[in-house]
């Protein structure tokens, strides 16, 4: 998450972490954790359908 959000939010690293960059990182963290849940659900559903099919 740290790597991903750094890539998205700190395009040109300056002398300090700007307020806008910090806000972006915070937003990015929230979206990343949401994404984690979406992926987890999709994978769990898939495992469930797969194991009930066979």
């Amino acid at each position: 998450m740290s790597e991903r959000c750094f890539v998205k939010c700190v395009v040109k690293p300056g002398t300090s972490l700007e307020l806008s960059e910090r806000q972006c990182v915070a937003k990015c963290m929230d979206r990343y954790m949401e994404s984690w849940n979406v992926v987890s659900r999709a994978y769990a559903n898939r495992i469930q359908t797969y194991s009930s099919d066979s």
Partner: protein
Amino acid sequence: MEQQISSIPGYDTDKELQQFVEIEQQKARFHAQVHKFTEMCWDKCIDKPGNRLEAKEEACLTQCVERFLDSTHFIVNRLDEIRKQQ
């Protein structure tokens, strides 16, 4: 300690422990996969993180996981076919 408890007749601690470890390992594997998928699908689906996860992005993440598994399945099957032809 473990040896002592499991040596009591009719006591299935060994089996229970084995089951417990197996389930925990499964959970860890699931977790590791989700971690990998999130990294991969995040790069594919999320352009600029907004104030909320868009429906489009959510659909992309779900499809990303499903199509990745389809691809893996396809590749495994195809490799198997190629191997059989030889």
